[in-house]
């Protein structure tokens, strides 16, 4: 290898790497990570090579193993970074739309008020980090960490397109939903651990919500999978692209799922577990400072995932009409759809008051449950008639 830096940074084909983790599927964030790691490692190797010509260290640094490991780390960073930025954008979007709905301006800091979330994050970070004395320490901290951790992990696991994914699961939807449904249980634990009556009631309400909303949600999810004949997200999107976006055959399921998704991400008409008018902050009451800030962030991550679910199941994922699934702007198109669905979430928040616990269970079991089954019947009929 020569002395020129271009001998070291040659931008190899990532898929030619011996340890390429995704088989024969192309992965865009991996390629970005791979190129970045090539620049970093190539530079270090070239630098070492200037002193000791043809040394083993330099050779090792640009070998397939090291490149792959760093590329995977960078892949995760890239995916999380994009998710984080999307999240900030959604917070900004919510505040701006809500501001318009309420006849006020919304956030004002930075260009179009975009930097307000960063400012709020910094403020929350500066706050005193108080943990009460009489808490159950283990569950208090683990509950918090797991709520935030699962939410962030979930947001990272959502594929943005056929080439933007963290791993390709054949049963992707089920795993995503499983992770999604974990939070209420953790909230129940965290609410109990705080030794506070408000947070205890908040945790209990989260459990109530879980019972009443996840069943119809899961039924609709399974219905969509039945229609597509697959559990994989890629297959689902491809099927919708080939045939018809599921919002048309599953129009009942779409609206039912929309309501359930708001409830599942604990947003305003259904944010019973943190109802501030009666329960102060619900299960978050004793989480002070940045803990609360991270919980809020995790809430928005979950809101993002809920919107992504709706887009993947009903609105064709990243499929563009007349252009297919393999467009160069697939990720942007997908995120645009997510933001549009989220705008509807914000609209619901601006228009409705918080519902009561008994009302929520009534809606869940007496309205949404029959509707989801009706949706299943329609889909089975479509399948039997062979229309799709």
């Amino acid at each position, binding site marked *: 290898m020569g002395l020129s830096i271009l001998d070291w940074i040659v931008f190899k084909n990532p898929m030619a790497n011996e340890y390429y983790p995704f088989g024969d599927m192309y992965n865009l964030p991996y390629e970005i990570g791979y190129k970045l790691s090539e620049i970093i490692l190539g530079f270090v190797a070239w630098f070492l090579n200037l002193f000791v010509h043809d040394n083993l260290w330099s050779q090792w640094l640009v070998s397939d193993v090291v490149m792959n490991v760093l590329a995977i780390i960078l892949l995760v960073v890239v995916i999380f970074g994009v998710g984080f930025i999307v999240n900030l954008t959604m917070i900004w979007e919510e505040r701006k739309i809500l501001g318009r709905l309420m006849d006020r301006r919304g956030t004002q800091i930075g260009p179009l008020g975009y930097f307000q979330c960063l400012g709020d994050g910094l403020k929350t970070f500066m706050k005193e980090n108080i943990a009460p004395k009489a808490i159950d320490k283990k569950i208090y901290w683990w509950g918090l960490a797991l709520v935030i951790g699962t939410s962030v992990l979930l947001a990272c696991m959502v594929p943005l397109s056929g080439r933007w994914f963290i791993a390709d699961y054949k049963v992707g939807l089920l795993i995503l939903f499983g992770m999604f449904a974990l939070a209420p249980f953790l909230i129940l634990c965290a609410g109990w651990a705080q030794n506070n009556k408000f947070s205890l009631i908040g945790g209990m309400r989260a459990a109530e919500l879980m019972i009443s909303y996840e069943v119809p949600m899961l039924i609709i999810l399974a219905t969509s999978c039945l229609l597509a004949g697959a559990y994989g997200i890629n297959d689902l999107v491809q099927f919708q692209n080939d045939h018809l976006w599921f919002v048309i055959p599953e129009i009942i399921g779409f609206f039912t799922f929309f309501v359930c998704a708001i409830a599942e991400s604990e947003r305003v008409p259904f944010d019973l577990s943190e109802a501030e008018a009666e329960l*102060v902050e619900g299960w978050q009451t004793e989480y002070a400072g940045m803990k609360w800030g991270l919980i809020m962030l995790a809430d928005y991550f979950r809101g993002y995932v809920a919107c992504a679910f709706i887009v993947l199941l009903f609105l064709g994922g990243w499929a563009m009409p007349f252009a297919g699934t393999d467009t160069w702007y697939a990720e942007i198109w997908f995120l645009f759809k997510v933001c549009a669905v989220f705008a509807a979430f914000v609209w619901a928040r601006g228009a409705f008051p918080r519902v009561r616990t008994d009302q929520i269970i009534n809606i869940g079991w007496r309205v949404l449950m029959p509707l989801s089954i009706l949706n299943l019947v329609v889909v089975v009929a479509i399948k039997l008639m062979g229309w799709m």
Partner: protein
Amino acid sequence: MVEERMNTDKMWITMGPQHPFSHGLWTLRVHADGEIITDAEPEIGYLHRGWEKECENRTYAKIIPMADRLCYSASMTWSHVFCKVAEEALDIEVPERAQYLRVIADEICRIQSHLMWLAAVGTDLGNLTVFLWALREREFFLDLNIRLCGQRLTTNYPRIGGVRNDMPYYFERDCMRCVERFETVGLPEIMKLATDSSPFVGRMQGIKYLTAKDVANWGVTGPAMRGCGVDYDVRRDDPYDAYGEIDFEVPVLNKNNPKGGDAYDRFLVRLEEMYQSCEIIRQAFQKLQSIPKEAPSRVKVPRCIPAGTHMAKIEDPRGESIMYLVSDGTEKPWRLKVRSPIFVNVSSSKHMVDGVRIADVPAIMAMIDMCLGETDR
């Protein structure tokens, strides 16, 4: 005792003094069996300033601005009731022009106070849009207050023997414009999110029926009482100032309903009262036109009030406010008792929240429209 301790199903929850639903510093301790409330105990006194005792140390004129501070959103009626009791003590009648001006000022105050309440209902039920829209509408009426008195909230407008100043130029035009806009555009727009929205109504409908007999016995007054079927309004049944000459309806719901009224009825009464206040303002302006502009809006009164006991009552936005004055012939009162409507209403919150869910507590207590300044005095 041991059994009491072993009974872990029920717990005392202290809602307040720093609790989002309380709208001020007070505590509602509820005994909850899961989410159902079995017992409750209101606690007040965090804001007790010895207002009545302070008044014994001040001349009568100095009490008027203090009376403004009893309640930030009903300042007009509070200084009005004080002027009323002083006028009764002096045994004078206020000039007619001042009477109508007081009526107009009172009704503006009532509308803006009710809008503040509507905003509070919005936050209590978790709909911030109602909150901000109501505050937006309220701003127009506060601007009217600025035109009339120079102040948004603590108006310091009535005087013993009249009002401070006659209305400014074009006040009638501005006021009628504002009132008409409010009736036709402002309030109906908010109602699209409130009475037209079934989740919003569902939060209040069927929540805690109170019978007229109970409500009267607990001493609850104001819209909360009229929503439960008691047909009584000081403005109509015990008219003061120019209210006797104005023709208006007192909204009463469930008048002969043995079941009484729920939280939603109490909500509706306040809304209807806002429309009626608009009507009263309109009529008062019409009547005011027949009184020449040069007529006095204030009479001169002596500094000292003759000895005796006097009582005046008027209809506050929140209920029936009474001042009982004992004068000893000097320039300072011997004793001034304030009967605050919220003080009595909140004492009955114990019965009001009995048997409801914790989630209903904000919806029920919002219908009382808490204001702690006048409660603790």
